[in-house]
């Protein structure tokens, strides 16, 4: 108990917790779950965008998309490393992803059907992610907070890029505008769901707040996102697909319509449009890469043995 109190004191004093510091098991577990889930989201998130690499409509956009997906893979790497500092291996985390034990952000279970979706994913999905991540830059766990700072910088770049794709479409032909509106229609609600349901009095969430793993409630972050995004949609000349959306002068923010939490839970539980596809693809990649990883390992071992033998011979 004294340990827990001392730990909480450090947290309250805004001291960063570092890998070798003592920490409560619950803190460690919560972080492992959250960081690995975040890492998995980066990895699975490569799939919907990857679907458009071969068909990107210009060389410039193709290069930007390749670079963006590469960044996501890079984020996955930092995050896996941050999680590893908490005593879990990448193999374990991968195993949890493939077995379905670990989750990833449900937004990636929606398909990227048109080029405008690549814009919408950058603008809305990365935009929503950033709202979460900015808060996490001040997370109490040092390695996570530092990974977030780096990630946030790249994500805002991606978000601007996505928005820029939509600006181009909205300044383009009627078909292009329609394509942009259609993408907004499909990605708006799932983006709002990215913040998760209202927490109410969730004990889990309160503990995360206390430990400063989480600093804002889901609803607060969602409102911030809506307030930032609606004017951007207006600038594009697109209509947010929520007839109940309206500006509330008093709270200086938008009121929005009800979110379909049935859909949210359905997708979380595996019945979204692409859940099975995403996992099937990931498992296939792991399976087909197995011989390569084995070969790399075998070579490393041979090499180490040869070097050891050479050292012995030299002595």
């Amino acid at each position, binding site marked *: 108990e004294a340990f827990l109190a001392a730990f909480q004191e450090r947290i309250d004093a805004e001291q960063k917790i570092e890998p070798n510091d003592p920490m409560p098991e619950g803190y460690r577990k919560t972080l492992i779950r959250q960081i690995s889930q975040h890492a998995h989201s980066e990895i699975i998130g490569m799939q919907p965008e990857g679907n458009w690499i071969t068909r990107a409509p210009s060389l410039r956009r193709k290069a930007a998309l390749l670079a963006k997906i590469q960044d996501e893979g890079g984020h996955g790497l930092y995050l896996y490393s941050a999680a590893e500092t908490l005593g879990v291996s990448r193999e374990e985390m991968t195993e949890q992803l493939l077995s379905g034990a670990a989750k990833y952000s449900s937004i990636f279970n929606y398909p990227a059907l048109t080029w405008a979706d690549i814009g919408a994913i950058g603008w809305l999905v990365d935009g929503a992610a950033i709202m979460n991540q900015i808060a996490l830059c001040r997370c109490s766990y040092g390695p996570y907070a530092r990974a977030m700072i780096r990630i946030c910088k790249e994500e805002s770049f991606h978000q601007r890029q996505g928005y820029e794709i939509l600006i181009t479409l909205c300044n383009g032909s009627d078909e292009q505008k329609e394509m942009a509106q259609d993408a907004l229609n499909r990605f708006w609600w799932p983006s709002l769901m990215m913040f998760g349901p209202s927490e109410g009095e969730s004990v889990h969430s309160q503990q995360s707040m206390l430990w400063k793993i989480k600093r804002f409630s889901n609803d607060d972050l969602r409102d911030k996102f809506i307030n930032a995004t609606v004017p951007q949609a207006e600038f594009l000349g697109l209509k947010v697909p929520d007839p109940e959306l309206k500006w509330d002068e008093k709270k200086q923010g938008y009121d929005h319509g009800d979110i379909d939490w049935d859909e949210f839970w359905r997708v979380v539980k595996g019945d979204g449009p692409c859940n099975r596809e995403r996992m099937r693809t990931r498992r296939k990649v792991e399976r087909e890469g197995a011989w390569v990883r*084995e070969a790399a390992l075998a070579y490393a071992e041979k090499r180490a043995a040869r070097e050891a033998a050479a050292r012995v011979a030299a002595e």
Partner: protein
Amino acid sequence: MAEDQTLFTYLLRLADDHLILSQRLGELCGYGPTLEEDLALTNISLDLMGQARALYAYAGEVEGKGRNEDQLAFLRYERDYLNALITELPNGDFAQTIVRQFFVAAFMVPFWREMERSSDETLRAIAAKASKEVAYHLRHTSEWVIRLGDGTDESHARMEEALDALVMYTGELFETDEVTEAALRAGYAVDPKSLAHEWQQTVDSVLREATLTLPESGHMQTGGRNGLHTEHLGHVLSELQYMQRTYPGLNW
């Protein structure tokens, strides 16, 4: 052939090599055998794309008909693409992807180094940047050739199969014809035949360390420089060109 036309064709061949190989690697983005390797292959794809864009932009300038990089990259017919056949071959398994890239990089390293002495300023500038990039491609793929060749029995067998399947597409890289010869006379080109010895040495020394040997090459396949491709290219183009063909004349 007018001089400008020669330079245009020369640039287009080189640009198409880079575009098509970049497109092939792009197919793998998100599907690498490890996350690190996924990033590395995407990196190579991006480098190639950057080189392709510089080359198309310059080709468009030389042509002087106002075609930009996208019009050149996306809006030609299948028989008008001039890339070497090796760049359009399917990714196959990881061994084939690596061997294909290794063969090409072992050629591009001396190619771009020599190109740094081109009489053409733009080509020199492209070469200066590309030289650094391709040195990494060669290093990276060489390491994999060694790892896989000297790894497990399975990886060794897969590498042998990949070498066997791909060696017949390497000869084309060293071919010359009237375009190359006119370009050489004009002073801006690199003589690919002069790079053959270095290529062979690079390949042999890496393969030796990988406990592999280059199979007898026999007859070399050719045709790409004249737009005679494998049956694979058409399928690559149907994806590559999809948006530009479906929505002609728009900005993206």
